[in-house]
């Protein structure tokens, strides 16, 4: 298949792997964070770690939209959904995220009208078709999905659709990266920058990572060869003692971002003073809400939202996993009490969550597998 197979070529992967291995300084350990959950998914789905030398560890970052939603926000959303005449709409990934009393799926099974959509525009369509209902879109995601929410609100305003609103949970990536860089728990050598977010915000916002923290960033695409090549570029920077922002995903990411998308966000949304991230706590200026001009579309103003704050279950270590301090399997409840079927933590829900990726794709001990292969070869 064109535009896919070229980026999954095993021969090219072997060649890159050899170049990466050659750049490793003997005795040095490298920790590289892939910020975006989409990368985590690709890494596990294609078994990419098989190509990396032992001295390189990939640390899974916070860029998973579903993973960072705190339990209280899910409870608020379910509360909204159960108001009279409300149709709640949401991306599929959100459906199984646990709130304190259950997920959207559970609420749906109990009779609440919650519908899965592929785009906020589908929500608007539902609003048009059901003028006697109040349709709420549960907006989640980083700068990647914020423009589509913004465009939908602009269209709703232009068409004068009054029964549509947004429960806005959009977050921004840079404060999260900064929180990780400021965290004393973790020393990272470099970052694979989030490709999809960067199509919107461009590469400039990461400049502080190189300038202030001396860490290289390579904005990476989502096919396995993109990621291997980006790791190679990072290793080359480290070997040469450079810390720069590079754009591996230049076929999609413009250096200055997408102005139209940024304008749409700027027109309809504004920064919240602070927002709670699952596991990371409150981070200032890290999330968006509807702007005053578009307050008529803000579900948090149209409805009485309880604003419940629910502490994560003590045993759940999503925060440590999101920050990359713990590997998924190092969490105490990983795979026993917390599974994709009955997730306690959000990292186990989304296909982009590190725990789900490891559980579904990586749940085998690679060193042991390699050992066994050696033994069987004699």
């Amino acid at each position, binding site marked *: *298949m064109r535009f896919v197979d070229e980026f999954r070529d095993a021969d090219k992967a072997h060649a890159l792997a050899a170049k990466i291995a050659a750049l490793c300084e003997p005795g040095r350990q490298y920790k590289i964070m892939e910020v975006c959950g989409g990368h985590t998914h690709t890494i596990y789905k294609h078994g990419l770690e098989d190509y990396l030398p032992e001295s390189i560890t990939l640390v899974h970052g916070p860029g998973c939209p579903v993973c960072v939603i705190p339990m209280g926000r899910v409870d608020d959303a379910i509360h909204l959904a159960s108001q009279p005449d409300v149709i709640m709409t949401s991306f599929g990934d959100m459906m*199984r995220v646990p709130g304190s009393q259950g997920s959207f799926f*559970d609420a749906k099974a109990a009779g609440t009208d919650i519908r899965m959509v592929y785009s906020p525009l589908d929500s608007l369509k539902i609003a048009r078709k059901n003028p006697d209902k109040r349709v709420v879109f549960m907006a989640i995601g980083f700068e990647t999905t914020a423009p589509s929410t913004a465009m939908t609100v602009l269209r709703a305003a232009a068409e004068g659709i009054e029964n549509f609103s947004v429960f806005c949970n959009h977050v921004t990536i840079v404060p999260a990266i900064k929180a990780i860089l400021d965290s004393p728990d973790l020393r990272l050598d470099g970052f694979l920058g989030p490709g999809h977010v960067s199509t919107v915000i461009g590469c400039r916002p990461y400049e502080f990572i190189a300038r202030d923290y001396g860490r290289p960033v390579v904005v990476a695409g989502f096919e396995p060869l993109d990621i291997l090549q980006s790791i190679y570029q990072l290793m080359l920077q480290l070997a040469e003692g450079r810390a720069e922002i590079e754009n591996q995903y230049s076929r999609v990411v413009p250096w200055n971002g997408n102005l139209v998308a940024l304008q749409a966000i700027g027109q309809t949304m504004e920064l919240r003073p602070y927002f709670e991230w699952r596991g990371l706590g409150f981070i200032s200026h890290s999330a968006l809400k509807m702007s005053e001009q578009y307050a008529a579309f803000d579900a948090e103003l149209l409805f009485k939202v309880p604003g419940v704050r629910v502490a994560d279950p003590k045993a759940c270590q999503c925060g440590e996993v999101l920050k990359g301090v713990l590997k998924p399997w190092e969490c105490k409840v990983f795979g026993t009490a917390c599974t994709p079927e009955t997730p306690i933590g959000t990292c186990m829900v989304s296909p982009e969550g590190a725990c789900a990726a490891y559980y579904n794709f990586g749940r085998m001990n690679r060193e042991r597998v390699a050992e066994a292969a050696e033994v*069987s070869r004699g």
Partner: protein
Amino acid sequence: MTTGSTGGWIAEALREHDHASEQEPEVQPEQRPSPRGRRELPIADREQQVLDRIDRARRRRARVREERITMSHGAGGKATQTLIEAVFLDAFGNPLLAELEDAARLAVGGARLALTTDSFVVSPLFFPGGDIGDLAVNGTVNDLAVSGATPLYLSAGFILEEGFPVADLTRITASMREAAAAAGVQVVTGDTKVVERGKADGCYINTAGVGLLERDVPLGVAQARPGDAIIVSGPVGDHGVTIMLARGELDIESDVESDTAPLAGLVAALLDAVPGVRAMRDATRGGVATILNEIAKAADVGVVVSEDDIPVRDEVRGAAELLGIDPMYVACEGRLVAVVDGAAAEQAVAALRSHPLGAEATVVGRITAEQPGLVRLKTAFGGTRIVDLLVGDPLPRIC
């Protein structure tokens, strides 16, 4: 801002987890004791301990945690299996049912029979390549066929919604008649119920089928053993992708058609030619990946498959790629997965290819003794990963 607490279910899950951990033998490091104890274990060993613990957790008796049925319980993946084991097996448990094969095998008055049933709730009712009618016939025929039986008689039960067009019903029955004729079966009994408007989505069909077991071959996924080959009879995922696209919600157009077809002839061709057939399954809900997991679990063997070898049409791959789903989990309605003696693999592929429905049959993997219970995939990219049962419906990624 108020503060809430988590509901009972999390506390319960954790209690259960603690209880189970207490009963587990503590794995001792196989090395000299160190003052800092287990922290000194090499990382690979610590990871292995966790993996072993997960393995034990997965082998524990299934239990339904939800208070109500959710859509996941019908998706054919993990939740469906839990529901079957915890509710239905618990209620009806008997040795014939416990085999959990596609059809029950019975001995009645000297004859060996296979009995199966299936309900059809597909939406839309009509789609490229077929409709709910031929699906309802082929689905039950195939469950009998892959059990090694010659399908003979079917029942048909209709649940119709008030207001459903009679023209649509006759269109459905006409395609049932044609499908039955093609499969060499007769619909010999039936039932009709009508429910009020809004209480059903047009038309649901249940079919049950009886077949005659003429061959003395002990078929079953528990028969798989190391060295066996795994074969699929053709490209996978056509049906599921067709249905998803036919719903028209995705604005993707493609020429892909459902593969719905009766498999009895193809099965006969295989069983006639190859003595070493261990098991067959038709890859419906949950797709090929689910069957591979069923094999690994039932026979307690490892399964290794190669992504490059799994046939998927370009149209299906393209649509699946756009939707963020894996064709290995997408339903087929005219494909089977066979486990055969490794030595007979070529012969089996040749036999399948001699039949029009098996023209693209191919070996996709093998059974191993290593890593029992796990399905491992050699990815096209050259890495390795596991293929697990699916949780919930295939949902597309959002970023």
